[in-house]
C-alpha cells in the first residue's frame, strides 16, 4: 500500500484514499473531428508504459476529491513528485537528483 502526497491537501496519505487514473499529460484534443483515425487511436489507447519514470494521474477520491499528477518510478514504485492538475511536467533529472 503506497503512501501518496496529495498536492491539494499537502498531506501524505495512504493509497486507500486514492484512485489511480492512468497516464498523465494526455490532453483531450480541442477539436477531435480534426484528428485522423490514427491520431485519435493514439489519444485513446497508446500509452508510454515505461519501465522507469512514469507521469500519471491519481484522484484523491476519498479525500479532497481532486485529480492530480504524479511522477513515479515504476520499478520500485517510489514517487518522485506529485503536483496539481494543469501544471507542466517537472524536470525528471532534477527529481531523480533530489530522490538520490
Amino acid at each position, binding site marked *: *500500500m503506497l*503512501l501518496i502526497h496529495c498536492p491539494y491537501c499537502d498531506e501524505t496519505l495512504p493509497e486507500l484514499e486514492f484512485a489511480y487514473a492512468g497516464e498523465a499529460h494526455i490532453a*483531450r484534443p480541442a477539436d*477531435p473531428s480534426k484528428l485522423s483515425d490514427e491520431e485519435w487511436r493514439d489519444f485513446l489507447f497508446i500509452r508510454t508504459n515505461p519501465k522507469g519514470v512514469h507521469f500519471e494521474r491519481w*484522484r484523491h*477520491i476519498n479525500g479532497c*476529491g481532486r485529480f492530480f499528477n504524479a511522477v513515479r518510478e515504476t520499478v*520500485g514504485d517510489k514517487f518522485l513528485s506529485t503536483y496539481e*492538475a494543469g501544471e507542466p511536467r517537472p524536470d525528471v533529472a532534477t527529481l531523480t537528483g533530489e530522490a538520490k
Partner: protein
Amino acid sequence: MTSYRLPNRGRVDHARPVKFTVDGKSYQGLAGDTLASALLANGVHLMGRSFKYHRPRGVVSAGSDEPNALFGTRRGPGRFEPNTRATLQELRAGLEATSQNRWPSLAFDMGAINDNLGSLFSAGFYYKTFMWPRAFWDRVYEPVIRNAAGLGVSPTEHDADTYASRFAHTDVLIVGSGPAGLAAALAAGRAGASVMLVDENAEPGGTLLSEPSVVIDGKPAWDWLAQALAELAGLPNVTVMTRTTAIGYYHQNLVGLCQRLTDHLDTPPEGAPRERMWKVRAKEVVLAQGALEKPLVFDGNDRPGVILAGAAQTYLHRYGVKVGDRPAIVTAHDSAWYAAFDLAEAGAKPAVIVDVRASVDPALTDRARALGIETLTGRTVTGTSGRLRVKSLRVNRMENGKAGAPRDVACDAVLMCGGWTPCLHLFSHTQGKLAWNEAAQCYLPGTKTEAVQIAGAGRGLWGIAAALEDGAKAGALAAKDAGSEAEAPAFTVSADRIGSGVTLRELPTDRDPGKAKAFIDFQNDVTAKDIRLAVREGMRSIEHVKRYTTNGMATDQGKMSNVNGLMIAADALGKAPPQVGLTTFRPPYSPTTFGAFAGYHKDATFEVTRKTPIDPWAEANGAVFEPVALWRRAWYFPKPGEDMHAAVSRECRGARASVGIFDASTLGKIEVVGPDAVTFMERMYTNPWAKLGVGRCRYGLLLGEDGFIRDDGVIGRLAEDRFHVTTTTGGAARVLNMMEDYLQTEWPDLQVWLTSTTEQWATIALQGPNARLLLAPFVPDVDLSAEAFPHMAVIETTVAGFPARLFRVSFTGELGFEINVPARHGRALWETLFEAGKAYDITPYGTEAMHVMRAEKGYIIVGQDTDGTLTPDDANLNWAIGKAKPDFVGKRSLTRPDMVAKGRKQLVGLLTDDPKVVLEEGAQIVADPSQPRPMTMLGHVTSSYWSDALGRSIAMAVVVDGRDRDGETLHVPMPDGSIPAKVVKGTVFLDPENSRLSA
C-alpha cells in the same frame, strides 16, 4: 515412559500441569510448554511423516522454521486447523492434536513404501513418465498422484472464530525481541520515539531465553531481561507485542503483523478475535530477526532424534527438557559445543562431539574433556541407525579429503549444527539486495529500498554483546531518523559465547552417494543428490533448481533448506554461490491464517449491502430481493402460493390496469450546478441541452470516449443553472467520477460543480392509468393535468407535506410520476401513498416487473441490452444525438471505420413464431440452424419476457444488420431444438402511439 523433564529448569511452570492428547493418547505437559517441548518431555521425538517418502520424522527445530513436527490441532467444533507447527503451538488445556500424512498410524505408515521406491521418485521424475498410455494420465496416474498429495487434512466446518484488523502508525517498528531488538527498543524508547517491538514467540527475549549463563551489566541474562522488559513496560511510548509475526514488508514501510490472540488460551474471553492483522506504517523499521541454524547434510540426518543443536539448547533452557540422555553432537560451528556443555551440566551424558573442522578452539576441547565428553575433530558423519528413533551415529575419519574407516557411536539423540544463516526474509520482501559475504559464507543485507536498519545476527554479527551493541545503535539511529534525539546505550557483557563456524555442502561419505539420503529439505524429501541431478539436467539457475526439486517450497518456506541447497547447487555448477543466486523470499514470513487476512470481512460484513429507506417495508411485505451492484433491490412481491412468474405477471397487470408503486431510490442522482451547467451537459451527453426549458426533462445518453454506450437516465432542468441528473443504479459512482475527470482535467475553466444526491432523495415511482388520481390530492400546489404537467415535466413542490421534486416520467409506458423526497421521509410517503392507493387496488412491484414493462415499451437497460460494445446507432438511439453539436464525449469515435461499417450488431425486437415460447436471455441467433458447427452467429437475445399485456412472449436482441432484416425469420438453436423467431425493426411492442404515456 521415562520423563525427560528436568526439575527446576526452564521457564515453564512446574506447578501447573496441562493435559493434552495426540492421536487420542493423553499426555501431560506444563504451562509454558509448546506441543513439541511437552512431547519431548515425554520422550517422544517422532512427530511427523515426510511428504514424499513418508519417512518417520522428529522435531528438528524450536521455532517457526520447523519442517517436520506438524499436527492437526483442534478446539471443539469449527476449530480445527492442519499443519500446525508443534514448535509454535503453546500447550493449552484439552488441546487435541492429530499426526498427519500417515496411515494407519504415525508409527506404522503404509505410505513408507515410497521410501523403498525412493530411487524411482528422484527430482522431476513425474515430468518424465506417466505419459503412456495417454488415457491413463486422467484416469490412473493423476488421481494417484493427487491422492498422495498434501500433509494434513482440510477443515470441514465453518470457522467458529472471528478475526480482527487494525491500522497503526509508529515512529519505530522493531521486529524481533532478542538482544538486538531489546537494545533497539531501549534506545528508541528512552529517546521518546513511539516504538512497537514485536516477536513471533510467546515470550520476548530471543536468544537470551536459551543462554541464561550470559551476564549483562553484571546481571544474569534472565534478570537483565526482566529488568529491560520492566523498563519498556514503563515507557508509555513503547508497545511490546508477543505471538506477533511480521508476515510481510510492503511499500513505504507498511509492515503486516499477524497477532495470535487466543490459540494459547484455555478459554478465550467473550468476543475475542482469534487473530488480528496489524497494518503498521512505521517511519523507521529495525529488523532484528537473528539467524537461523542450518542442518548438516549427511545420510540419515532426518532420523527422529536428530535435532538442531540450538533447538536442543532452547528445549533445555526454556522448557527444562533434555532431548536425550546420551546425545551425540555433530557440528561445523562452535555453538553446538555449548549446547553439549549445557546438556552435560544438566545431567545428560553426551556420547561424543564430532566437529567436521580439523581444528577447533582448544578452549572448547578442554572444556569437553573436563566434562568427560569424547571429542572427534576433522571427522565426517556418514549415517545413522534406528527406525523410529536414532540409535547410533556413524563417524568416519577423513583421509586425504575422503571418508575413511567408519565407527558407530551409540546415542539416543543427535545434535547437529551446520552453521547459521542471517534471517533476511523481510528485508528481501522490500526488494532490498542481498550481498554474498565470502568470509562469513552467507548473504548479508546490501542495498536498501526502504527506511530500515538491520541489527545483530541479521548482519552476521555473532554473540550477545555484539547484538546488544548493534541493536542499540540501530534503535538510536532509527529514533533519530524518525525525529527524536537519541543515543545508543552501552552494555557490558561477560560469559558471552562468541563463536565461529564453516559453511559446507553435504558431508563426504564412504558410501555410494547415489544411494545416500542426505536431506536438505526435510518436509519435501529433497536430498543432496536431487540437487546435483537437477544441475546435471541443465537447471542452471537456483530458481530452476528450486522448482525442479521443490527444495525450499515446503511450509518452512526454505528457512532450513535454501542455503544448503544453494551451496550444493553452486558446487555442482562449479560456480560461486552468488553466481547461482538466491531464491527470493516471499510473504508471508511464516504461514498465516486466511481468516486473519479477511479480518472483519466475514458473513454480513463481507461486503457493503446498500438498502433504500423503503427496503424495510419491502422486507416486511415479503419481497424477494436481488443484488444490483452494491444494492439489494426488491425483485418481486410474491403472494402466498405465487411463483416468480405469477407474481411478476400480477404486478405488471396491476400497474397497467390501475396503478403500481415502485421503489426507484437506487437510481444514481447527480446535481449539476453553475453558470456553465448547460455547456458542461452539452459536452458530456450526446443530447442537446441548451433548448431544454426549466421544468422539463430529457432522456440523456452518455458515451465513453470510445463511442460506446456507458450510461443513460432522465435529466431534469430545475433552473437555468441547475440540472437533476439521474444515472443507472450501477453506474452512479462511475458516471460521477467520469464527469469529475473531464471537469477537473479537461475543462477546468467551466464554472460548474457536481454533487451526488443519490442518497439525499428517496424516489417513489407511481405508474399506471390511475397514478394521477392517486397522487393529485397529495400535491396541492401543482395542477397535474396532462396539459399543465405533461410527460417529461419536473417541478419542486410538496407531496403529502414533504418537500419534493416531482417528475412526470415513465419507464413503463404508463402515465407515471417519480416523487423524490428527502430520504428520511421516504418510507412515510410510501406508506401514505400505499394506504391511499388501496382505493385503486395499488400494486407494489419489483425490478422484474419493471424490466418486463420497460421491455414491452421498448426501453433499453444499459448493461443488459447494451454491453459496452454498442454505439447509439447500434441501439437505435441516434435520435438522442445532438446532430448540430460540434463535439461531445465519444463523438469522434463514432466515425471510426468499424463504427460505420456494415455488419454491426443492431438492437431489434424478436417475436417467436410460437407466442408461448419465451426465449432464453443470452441465447444465440443464427440464420440457418442446420449448419455445422462452428455456426455463424448473428447475435444474441438481450432481454426476453412473457408479456402479460400482449399475451405473448417478447424479446430484444442484437443482430448483425438487424434493422435490414425487418420481418426476416431467424433461428435460436437450443440444446433441445431450434426456435424460429421473426425480427421486428422497432423494439416498441406496446402503445407505439404513446396514448397511455401521455394520458
